[in-house]
């Protein structure tokens, strides 16, 4: 299956893109450009953002905030997921916590986060609480599907607990974790934009808020496409790293 020629690989999404843009162009004819700007207006907006440096200035901040929150979520979510998966007692304590993180909407967090952490930390915090459950729950599910035969083997050969975690649990949880990381990474950019939208004056989300207030819909679309680009790049990067690291035994 891997052998499908790299030509069709490259062309397929391109083809979809062309159709999409054509449809969009047609649709934009029916509406005022405050509601639906045309592709060329958006392209012009992206270009001007890139040229005058605003793109990088704000994207940089969003990226830093996003990766901080995401990194912390992975660092906390994996051990938490392992613990919840292993111990029914801890599961009873922590699972409601995870669900809570997942269910409480942004606006409920906002005030508390601002008081506890201060303004500038809010986006990273929001990313953290949004992605932590994705990673944790996937890890839990991974642990639940650990091969019991290998666990027995480790017991017989008296492998220490930390090593069982590292060498038996983690590799088996990995495919699940990857699903979690993959969804979390996408969600990161959405969450950071949303949080910036509501709470700060720098970053992609903040610029989207400004564009919205000014009814500069083309700018809003431009920033949205920049987010999509960010999402696609990080998704590809992840896929690439995984393929490179894990090909030999999967």
């Amino acid at each position, binding site marked *: 299956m891997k052998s499908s020629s790299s030509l069709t690989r490259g062309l397929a999404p391109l083809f979809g893109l062309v159709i999409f843009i054509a449809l969009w162009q047609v649709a934009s004819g029916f509406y*005022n450009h405050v509601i639906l700007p045309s592709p060329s207006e958006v392209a012009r907006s992206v270009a001007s953002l890139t040229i005058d440096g605003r793109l990088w200035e704000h994207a940089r901040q969003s990226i830093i905030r996003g990766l901080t929150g995401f990194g912390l979520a992975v660092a906390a979510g994996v051990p938490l997921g392992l613990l919840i998966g292993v111990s029914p007692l801890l599961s009873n304590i922590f699972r409601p916590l995870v669900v809570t993180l997942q269910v409480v909407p942004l606006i409920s967090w906002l005030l508390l986060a*601002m008081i506890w952490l201060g303004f500038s930390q809010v986006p990273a915090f929001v990313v953290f609480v949004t992605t932590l459950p994705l990673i944790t729950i996937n890890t839990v599910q991974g642990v639940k599907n650990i091969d019991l035969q290998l666990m027995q083997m480790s017991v017989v050969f008296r492998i220490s607990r930390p090593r069982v975690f590292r060498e038996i649990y983690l590799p088996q949880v990995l495919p699940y974790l990857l699903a979690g990381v993959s969804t979390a990474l996408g969600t990161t950019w959405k969450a950071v934009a949303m949080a910036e939208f509501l709470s700060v004056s720098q970053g992609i989300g903040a610029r989207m808020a*400004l564009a919205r*207030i000014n009814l500069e819909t083309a700018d809003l679309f431009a920033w949205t496409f920049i987010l999509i680009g960010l999402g696609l790049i990080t998704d590809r990067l992840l896929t690439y790293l995984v393929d490179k690291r894990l090909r030999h035994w999967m």
Partner: protein
Amino acid sequence: KDANVKKQAAAAPEKIVVQAPLAPPTAPLYKILKDGQVNGVKVELIVYKSVEEATTRVVKGEADLTVLPVNVAAKLYNKQADISLANVSTWGILSLVTTDKQVQNWQDLKGKELYVGAQGSTPDVLTQYFIHKNNIQASEVKLAYLSSPEIAQLMINGIVKYAVLPEPQTTQVLMKNSEAVVARDFYTDWQAFEGGAARLPQAGMVVRNEFARTYPKALSDFQNAYKNAMEWTVASPAEAAPLVESNMSMPAAVFVKSMERTHLTFATGAQAKGDVNTYLARLLDISPEMVGGKLPDEKFFLTD
């Protein structure tokens, strides 16, 4: 003859669709709704939650009349929306609120952190205007942006000391934090800089031109009804309060208090023209995107 019949039938629309946010100028609309009809025509109220929700309906022609910030109305007009300004109802609902007794003037804000609702919105730009007019460098006051309800909450708890707030948040802050005072009223300060007669036109209603052309009678009936309802609301806020409490979930006491600082006066688009042009010209100086890049032309104002 056919055209005549059509015109006769068209004299009364089936209903008038009005869009408004959950804000002070909407209170009189609830009075109209309660009374039922405007000269035999049903009124349907859509409460919108975000400006783009409103603009979407305006552009798609799904609402006949829409309460909008005046600058947003101008912006839409400049971006080829087929609308005109029917009336202006809200003249300044912003105040500079502080818990720091030392701050009484704009000058006193130097070196402080001032919280303002959404970046690029009217409060933001007007604040920048006053800062500029008071000969303060933009860098001397740090502006922080957050939504008004959140600023109010933080202020009540003493975490935020200086803020620009609209009604009814100003009233809520004053009621819940005894330290808080209104340092500057935007309406008065505007008059101080723009001349005694100048008024600060913040929000009004736009009408769909198609609707205005087809049903001039219904429109003027509505304008009158709105004017009367507004005068009644201003004259007897205590009587209007239960309506507001049940429909807008705003505590009656807050509403009555906030009416003291809310300048609700009805003026038709034509009557408000001078004030609106001054206001938009100032905004244009500070931030051209706020009005759509240029002053709207004559046709923006609905002729009486």
